[in-house]
């Protein structure tokens, strides 16, 4: 249910002290969501935040909405129940890379394939924060952590790639320090019907500080990030002079103005293309890292399909009430 009440971000802040480490990107995410919600226009009481366990999963405590701080890895499964039970709610998941892709990997991919209408915020800091610094399924090969003192040997997932493999219809990405883009993406995520996955490249200042600095530092970010927008050419760079073109099946960075390349040669981003091939390439691109809404394909949601099937059952099932059911089929009287 939408609302006419004019909220400010403060309306979404609970009275609990926020207990993340000073400097953690989680603060930026919190604030960005609190800023997005008034623009989304849903009633406070219709919004639910569900999380697992991890630093990131403390999130619901800091929101003044309904919420469950669940158990490790099960946020998506819990949220699925909440959303199926009441499709009118706006259900958000807040979950870390470990929570979502280590112990919670199965629920993660299944929620995605079912296209249930959740807004899923993935706090990817490439580390287990709460348990003090073990490698996660997104940690880099060779990364030294408490549980990989000689370097991590387990090749990482790329969350967007995994999501596309699991049939994701919506995938967006933003840097942990980019409050503005984040706010925008949360609004887009909410607008999109179906599971909206937003990956945040979140810096953990304590156990994996600087993991993204080559992408997110002020000094480099404009050349290291390409923020895509549906319908717009994929141009980036400090001077807005770089862009993507197709080279066979691969993406290539070109410079506008060099070798006769003009803006018109640059690929125009189509987030709504059903075929995931190009989106996969975008998701996997390393230089630049692609931010923004990479994929946003309309499709039926799980709830839509549930509703259809319910309608159908109502039509075809001859039994119309529980009492009728009790007496259906072969019964007999004892007198």
């Amino acid at each position, binding site marked *: 249910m939408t609302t006419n009440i004019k909220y400010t971000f403060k309306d979404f802040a609970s009275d609990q002290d926020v207990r993340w480490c000073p400097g953690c990107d989680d603060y930026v995410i919190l604030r960005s969501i609190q800023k997005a919600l008034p623009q989304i226009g849903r009633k*406070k009481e219709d919004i639910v935040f569900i999380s697992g366990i991890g630093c990131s999963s403390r999130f619901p405590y800091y929101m003044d909405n309904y919420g469950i701080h669940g158990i490790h890895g099960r946020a998506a499964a*819990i949220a*699925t129940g909440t*959303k199926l039970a009441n499709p009118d709610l706006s259900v958000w998941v807040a979950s870390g890379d470990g929570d979502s892709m280590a112990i919670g990997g199965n629920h993660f991919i299944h929620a995605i394939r079912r296209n249930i209408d959740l807004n899923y915020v993935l706090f990817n800091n490439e580390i287990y924060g709460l348990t003090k610094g073990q490698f996660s399924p997104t940690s880099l090969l060779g990364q030294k952590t408490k549980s990989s003192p000689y370097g991590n040997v387990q090749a990482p997932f790329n969350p967007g790639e995994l999501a596309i493999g699991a049939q994701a219809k919506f995938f967006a990405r933003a840097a942990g320090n980019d409050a503005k883009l984040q706010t925008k993406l949360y609004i887009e995520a909410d607008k999109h019907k179906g599971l909206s996955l937003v990956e945040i490249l979140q810096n953990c200042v304590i156990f994996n500080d600087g993991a993204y600095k080559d992408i997110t530092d002020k000094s480099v970010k404009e050349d290291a990030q390409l923020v895509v927008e549906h319908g717009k050419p994929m141009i980036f760079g400090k001077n807005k002079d770089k862009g993507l073109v197709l080279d066979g099946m691969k993406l290539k960075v070109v410079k506008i103005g060099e070798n006769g390349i003009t803006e018109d040669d640059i690929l125009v981003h189509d987030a709504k293309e059903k075929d995931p091939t190009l989106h996969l390439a975008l998701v996997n691109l390393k230089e630049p890292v692609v931010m923004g809404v990479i994929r946003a394909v309309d499709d039926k949601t799980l709830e839509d399909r549930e509703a259809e099937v319910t309608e159908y059952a109502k039509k075809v*099932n001859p039994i119309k009430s529980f009492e009728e059911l009790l007496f259906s089929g072969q019964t007999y*009287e*004892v007198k």
Partner: protein
Amino acid sequence: MSKEALHKNKKQLDHVVIRFVGDSGDGMQLTGTQFSTSAALLGNDIATFPNYPSEIRAPQGSLYGVSGFQVNIGSNEISTPGDDLDLLVAMNPAALKTNIKDLKPGHMVIVDSDAFTRSNLQKAKYDSNPLEDGSLSNYNVVPVPMTSLTREALKDTGLDSKSMTRSKNMFALGMLYWLYSKDPKYTEEFLKKKFKNKPEIVEANIKALKAGYHFADTLELMPTHYVIGPAKKEKGTYRIIMGNQATAWGFMAAAKKAGLDLFLGSYPITPATDILHELAKWRNLDVIAFQAEDEIAGISSAIGASFAGKLAITTTSGPGLALKGEALGLAIMLEIPLVVVDVQRGGPSTGLPTKTEQSDLMQAMYGRNGESPAIVIAAKSPADSYDMAFMAAKLTLEHMTPVILLSDGYIGNGSEPWRIKTLDEMPEIKTYQITEYVEDFHPYKRDPKTLARPWAIPGTPGLEHVIGGLEKDKVEGTVSQDPLNHEEMVKLRAEKVRKVKDFIPPIEAEFDQEGDLLVVGWGGTYGSLKTAVKKYREENPDHKVGLAHFSYINPLPHGVADLFSKYKKIIVPELNMGQFADLLCMNYPQFDYIKYDKVQGLPLSSEELIKEFKKIIKDA
């Protein structure tokens, strides 16, 4: 003997135990169901139990591919599908071989003699034909060439021979109807309805049915037929119900009664899956049956749905319950309504997945980290599953803490007549749900009577709150690591479960109210125990034996110590290694408990129990 004479030769029986056995493809389940349904419709009390092979469709004629269906029909109260058989119907050598040991000596076995080919005998690992080698001389063997007789009867239908052969189960059924003086009309009606778009199938089956009936009528090998009079049962409208179906319906009834929708989050597992199948049918009646990716997602989705205000349940069997332990702990910590159904099967691990056992009791009590008490209750028969599912829902809603409902493969797959209980007959269910703003709301402020907390539902303005698995402040529900608050909360959660004692019926004994021996049981063994105690008392009228059957396990009901003290001996028969006896010992160490444990994937038989009772009373 003239036909007329034959007809007059009717013998009155008060009950009879029959087993139909054949290949998975022989239609034994249908045959058994039809026979028992007709009997019930004609007034008998019945109890049935199917016995599937664990293979989906084993090779034709193989020993492990034998599928069976047992039925006990009677003119007085029937509590179990019966122990030893009065009649065996075996459609092939493998079926004969694997089942003959259960037939009472001297009793009749009807076989399809056409199926005793060399190849089938080999598959059944018979060295010689048992119909000919005298090895069955202890039994009354009635060989009937059912296959050829069926084909003969259907030769004008135009069906191919394979299709004709498929009707031989109806031929067998017809014989049985004659033998037990039952009118085949219900089966005819059934066939007409079931195959209404395939008139040729209806015709063939009815023809085969009638052929069997008439064949038996004329057959000299069957000199007698039997009458089993109608059973005295409470007045009302009845239907035959399977345990798993009754469980499903019990929850539907509770949801209606509480004014809530029903949400099931489940992952298929034998022998619980039929509850999912059943509930999946009724999405037009406000039931969401969500098949999740695994058991953990099953319970987790139910937790999410409960938070959103549904009557939420999750169904599984032993290995699945093991997987749900952590999430069940969360539900206990959250203090939300949730029912977990465990239809127990043979363990440990994958164990004997299609066989029955009661070995998850301790798991239900303790299979979670930390101090995490749950209400634990158990269904005692197929029909009782309706009441206990209803009760599980009522308790979880009225006490705001999860309930585990234990069933088992034996009662889950078994069926019996059930006097239909409409919603009017069921007790009220009051919930703690809040869907409108209230002043002074505190998520963990409790109703002193039950210690239940309010259940404020998302969507309700002004009651926004967050619940979670960390220990929480005893009123606000916010995270609290305070030592004394934790201790208080641990005790509150335990006390909340203990208080349920005041809301459930006290334990009572059936039969003798004091005396030599108290038989103590719980869950699905009720029918076996009751039959055994009844028989024992009939045979030993001067021995005083009572039966105390527990439907409520945690908390135990009031009156236990009082009752136990009235008997000289207490025996606790169970289909496990004595788990309930151990629990009793923990709670009432002042009594001696004689364990009687059976772990064979099979129900208790009254014979073995009676033997044991005798021994104990003699020793006393």
